C-alpha cells in the first residue's frame, strides 16, 4: 500500500513538473544557428544521394535554380490568431513554393481565441506550432523560452533578406528585456518607392453611392459627415432588395471596440499611436496625452449621442457582436462607420458575388477632422509603421531552426515573392514589352474567386513580405498596388468617384499630411498591448478598458449627455489613468533615448 502511494505521489509530481516545463529551450537550437544555410540542406539530403546537394547556397540571389525533391520537403505548421481562409491541400502555388524552398507550411487560423489566452495554454502543454504569429502573446512566448532568437541569423549574411527588413535602430525596438530579438513584424514595410494605393487602416467610411448622390462633396467634419448620411437615408430609406438602410453603426465588442473608441486621436490630427496621443507642439519634449479626456473626445461622443437620439445611428450598435456587424455590412445596409479597413475588408468578395459593387455599396475612407479647415490630419500614414509588439516567430518546437529561418529569408527573394503575390507567370499574370506585369480580365476574376484562391493561390500572408516597388524598379511588390491592376479592378461607381475627385489612391480620400517619417517611438500601442495585470499600470490600463467598454455606449445612448459624461469621466478617473500615462511617458522617453 505504502509503496503504491509513494509511487502515486512520485507520478503526480512528475506530471506536475512536466506540465510546467512545457517549453524548455532546446540546448542546441541557438548554438548551431550561426552555421550557414547550406549545412541544413546537406544534412537533409544525406539520406538521399540522388538529390544534388550543391544547390541552395546561402546567397540571396542564387535561388532560381534550386528545386527540392519530394522527400526533402519539410512540413511545418503555422498558427495565427486571425480570421483567414484555409487553402486546399495540394494547392498549386504551395506545391511550387515547396519545390523551390524545401518547406511546406500548413497554416491554421484561430480567430476565436485571444492570442494571449491561447498562448498560455499552449505554453503549459508545450503544444506549439513551428511558426507562430503570437499576437499579444508574443512576449509571453519569449519569456517562457518558447522562441528561437533571431540575433545570430541577423548577423549572418546568408540571411540578408531578413536583416534588410528593418534598419538597425528599428531592430533594436524588437529587442526584448533578455537582450534577444524573437520576432519581426511582416506588415507595413515599403521596398523602394511607395506604391500603396489602398488604405488598410482606420477611417470614417462611407458607401460610394452616398457621395455620388451628393455630387461628390468634400467632407471634413463630423457634422458634415452625419448630415450626408442622414440626407441619403431620408431619400432612400430602403435598398433595392428591401433592406432598411442603417445610416451609421459602431462596433463596441471586445478588443474591436476601437471602432467607437479611438476616433478622437485622429480627429485631432494625430497618427494611430493607439492608446495615447504623443503631443509635440507647445511642449518642451514629446509628451503623452490621453485622448479620452480631450475636448474633441467630448465633442465626438456628444455628436454620436445626438445622432443616436435622432435615429441616425443603429439602435443595436451597442449589443451587436462582430459576426452580426460583418453580416450587417455585407448586406449593404450600412451607409457609414468608423473602422480599420482590415477589420471589414472580407466583405468585398461578398459584394462582388452579390453584384453590390456595381450598385456603389463599396466603402471609401474619409479623413474627418475636429474643426473645419484643420490641416493637421494623419489618418493615412505615408511612412512605414512597424508594430514591434508582435510578428512572425520560430518556436523551439521546430526541429530545424536553420531551415525555418532560411525559409523566412527565401520568402523575401524576389522570384518567391512574385510567386506568392502575383502567381505563376502565364497563368496568373503576363509581362508586357516594358517588363510591366499585368493581368487579363479572366485572371482578375480568378483572383476574386474564393474557390480559385483556395485551389491555386498561396500567399503565406503572415510571412515576411514587402509593399512598394519590386527589385526590378518597375513593378509593384503586390498586384493591388500596380497602377494598371488597381484601376482595372475598381468597380464603376468607385472609378467614377476617383475621377470626380481626381484621386489615384484610396489614401487621397483622407487628405492626410504627407509625413514620410514618423517619430521613432511610433506606435506607442506596441507598449500598451504588452501590458498585463501583474503591474500597477497594466491594471490601470485593463480597468480603463473595462470602464470605456461600459461607458462609451452608455453616453451615446444617454438621454442626458452632460450628466452622464460627467459620471463617465469620474468613473474613468477612478481607474487611475495617470499611473498608466506615467508609464507610457517613461516608455516614450526610453524609445527617444534608444534612437539617439
Amino acid at each position, binding site marked *: *500500500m505504502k509503496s*503504491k*502511494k509513494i509511487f*502515486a*505521489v512520485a*507520478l*503526480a*509530481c512528475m*506530471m*506536475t*513538473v512536466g506540465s*510546467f*516545463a512545457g*517549453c524548455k529551450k532546446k540546448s542546441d537550437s541557438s548554438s548551431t544557428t550561426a552555421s550557414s544555410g547550406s549545412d541544413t540542406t546537406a544534412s537533409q539530403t544525406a539520406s538521399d544521394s540522388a538529390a544534388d546537394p550543391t544547390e541552395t547556397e546561402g546567397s540571396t540571389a542564387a535561388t532560381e535554380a534550386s528545386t527540392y525533391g519530394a522527400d526533402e520537403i519539410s512540413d511545418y505548421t503555422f498558427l495565427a490568431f486571425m480570421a483567414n481562409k484555409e487553402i486546399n491541400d495540394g494547392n498549386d502555388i504551395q506545391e511550387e513554393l515547396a519545390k523551390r524552398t524545401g518547406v511546406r507550411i500548413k497554416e491554421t487560423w484561430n480567430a476565436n481565441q*485571444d492570442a*494571449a*489566452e491561447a498562448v*498560455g495554454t499552449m*505554453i*503549459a502543454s508545450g503544444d506549439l506550432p513551428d511558426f507562430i504569429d503570437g499576437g499579444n502573446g508574443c512576449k*509571453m512566448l519569449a*519569456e*517562457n*523560452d518558447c522562441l528561437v532568437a533571431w540575433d545570430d541569423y541577423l548577423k549572418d549574411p546568408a540571411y540578408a533578406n531578413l536583416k534588410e527588413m528593418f534598419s538597425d535602430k528599428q531592430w533594436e525596438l524588437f529587442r526584448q528585456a533578455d537582450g534577444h530579438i524573437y520576432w519581426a513584424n511582416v506588415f507595413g514595410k515599403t521596398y523602394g518607392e511607395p506604391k500603396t494605393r489602398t488604405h488598410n487602416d482606420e477611417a470614417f467610411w462611407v458607401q460610394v453611392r452616398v457621395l455620388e448622390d451628393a455630387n461628390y462633396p468634400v467632407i471634413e467634419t463630423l457634422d458634415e459627415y452625419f448630415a450626408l448620411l442622414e440626407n441619403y437615408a431620408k431619400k432612400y430609406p430602403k435598398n433595392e432588395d428591401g433592406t432598411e438602410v442603417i445610416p451609421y453603426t459602431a462596433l*463596441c*465588442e471586445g478588443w474591436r*471596440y476601437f471602432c467607437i473608441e479611438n476616433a478622437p486621436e485622429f480627429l485631432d490630427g494625430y497618427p494611430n499611436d493607439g492608446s495615447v496621443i504623443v503631443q509635440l507642439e507647445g511642449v518642451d519634449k514629446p509628451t503623452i496625452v490621453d485622448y479620452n479626456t480631450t475636448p474633441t473626445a467630448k465633442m465626438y461622443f456628444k455628436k454620436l449621442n445626438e445622432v443616436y437620439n435622432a435615429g441616425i445611428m443603429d*439602435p*443595436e450598435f*451597442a*449589443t*451587436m*457582436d462582430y459576426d452580426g456587424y460583418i453580416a450587417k455590412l455585407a448586406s449593404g445596409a450600412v451607409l457609414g462607420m468608423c473602422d480599420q479597413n482590415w477589420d471589414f475588408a472580407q466583405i468585398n468578395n461578398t459584394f462582388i458575388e452579390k453584384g453590390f459593387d456595381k450598385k456603389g455599396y463599396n466603402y471609401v475612407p474619409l479623413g474627418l477632422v475636429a474643426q473645419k479647415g484643420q490641416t493637421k490630419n494623419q489618418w493615412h500614414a505615408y511612412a512605414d509603421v512597424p508594430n514591434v509588439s508582435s510578428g512572425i516567430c520560430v518556436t523551439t518546437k521546430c526541429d530545424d531552426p536553420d531551415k525555418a529561418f532560411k525559409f523566412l529569408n527565401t520568402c523575401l527573394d524576389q522570384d518567391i515573392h512574385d510567386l506568392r503575390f502575383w502567381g505563376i507567370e502565364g497563368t496568373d499574370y503576363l509581362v508586357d514589352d516594358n517588363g510591366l506585369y499585368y493581368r487579363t480580365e479572366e485572371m482578375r476574376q480568378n483572383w476574386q474567386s474564393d474557390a480559385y484562391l483556395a485551389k491555386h493561390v498561396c500567399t503565406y500572408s503572415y510571412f515576411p513580405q514587402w509593399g512598394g516597388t519590386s527589385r526590378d524598379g518597375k513593378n509593384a511588390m503586390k498586384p493591388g498596388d500596380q497602377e494598371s491592376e488597381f484601376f482595372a479592378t475598381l468597380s464603376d461607381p468607385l472609378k467614377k468617384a476617383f475621377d470626380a475627385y481626381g484621386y489615384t489612391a484610396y489614401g487621397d480620400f483622407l487628405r492626410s499630411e504627407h509625413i514620410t517619417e514618423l517619430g521613432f517611438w511610433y506606435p506607442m500601442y506596441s507598449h500598451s498591448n504588452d501590458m*498585463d*495585470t*501583474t503591474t500597477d499600470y*497594466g*491594471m490601470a490600463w*485593463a*480597468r480603463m478598458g*473595462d470602464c470605456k*467598454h*461600459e461607458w*462609451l*455606449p*452608455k453616453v451615446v*445612448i444617454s438621454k442626458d449627455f452632460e450628466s452622464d459624461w460627467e459620471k463617465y469621466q469620474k468613473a474613468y478617473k*477612478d481607474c487611475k489613468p495617470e499611473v498608466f500615462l506615467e508609464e507610457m511617458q517613461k516608455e516614450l522617453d526610453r524609445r527617444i533615448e534608444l534612437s539617439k
Partner: protein
Amino acid sequence: MKVANNGGAGSVVLKKRITKTELRRQSVLLIIAGLYVIYGIVFYYLPLAGWTMAFENFKLKDGIFGSEKVGFKWFKTLFEDKTFLRIIRNTLAMGVINLISTTVTAIGFAILLSEVRNVMGKKIVQTISYLPHFLSWIVVTSIVKDAFATKGMINELLTSLGIIKTPISFFMHTQYFWPIVAISNVWKETGWNAIIYLATITAIDPSLYEAAAMDGAGRWQRIKHITIPGIRSTIIILLIMNIGNVINAGFEVQYLLGLGVLKPVSETIDIYVLNYGMKNYSLGTAAGIFKTFVSMTLILLFNFIAKKTGDERLF
C-alpha cells in the same frame, strides 16, 4: 461484507480490531478502495498545490516553486477593486435567481406532469421539455438574442398585444439582463431538472392518494398534503447540493449576452478571471480560491440549517 458494528439492542458498541487476517481477507476491497484514494489525491488534492500561485508573482518560466512570493497582495488587489465587489454581487444575485427560478419551475412542472393521466401525452411533453438541456449555450444564446431583439418574437408579441407601444431594446438596458438570464436558464433546464422530482413523485405510495381521495381530498389538497411532503427531502438535498453552485452563476450565457453597456450587471467571477487573470495567473488563482471559499461556506451553512430544522442533510 460483514458489518463491523453489529451490536444489538442494549449491547455495547464494540470496535473490531483490525487484524492481519482481516486485512488479508479484505485485500481486494482495499486495493480497489486504494485506487480511488490515489485517484483522488492525484486529481483533486495535488493540483491544489497550484493554489500557492495566488501568493506569488507567478511566472510560467519560474514555475510554482520558483516564483517570487508576495503574500496576500492579490487578495488585497481583489477586494480593493470596486469592479470585483460588483462582480461578486452579480455572481451571487444571478446564482440565487437562477437557483430559485429553476427549482420552483422544475418542481411545478414535475407536479403538473405527474397529474397528467394520458401516458402518451405525458411522455411526449417530457421528452420535448428536456431536449433543450442538450443544446450548448452558444446555440441557446443565439435563440435568446433573436427572441429578444428589437424586431424579435417577444417584442412583436408585446406590441401586438398592446402591452408596449414601441419595441424595447432589451439588451441595451441593465434592468432586463438578470431576468433574461433566468428565463434562458429556466427554458433550458426545467425539463431536465424535473426528471428527478418526477421520479420521486412516482415513488410515493399510491395508496396514500387513494386514501386521501376516499376521505374527500381534492386534487389540490392531495398535491399539498401528499405530493409536496413526499418530495420535501429530495428538494432539501438538491438545494444543499446546488447551493454550492450558486457561485457558479454561469460563464457562457453572461459572456455571450453581456456586451458593452451590460457589463456592470453581466460580469461574473469567471469572466473576471478570464479578463484579468489570463496573463496574470496569480490574480486568477486568488479569485478562484475566493470562489471555493464562498462555495464551501454556503454548503456548510445550509447543511447546518438543515440539520437544525431536522431535515435531510448531506453530512
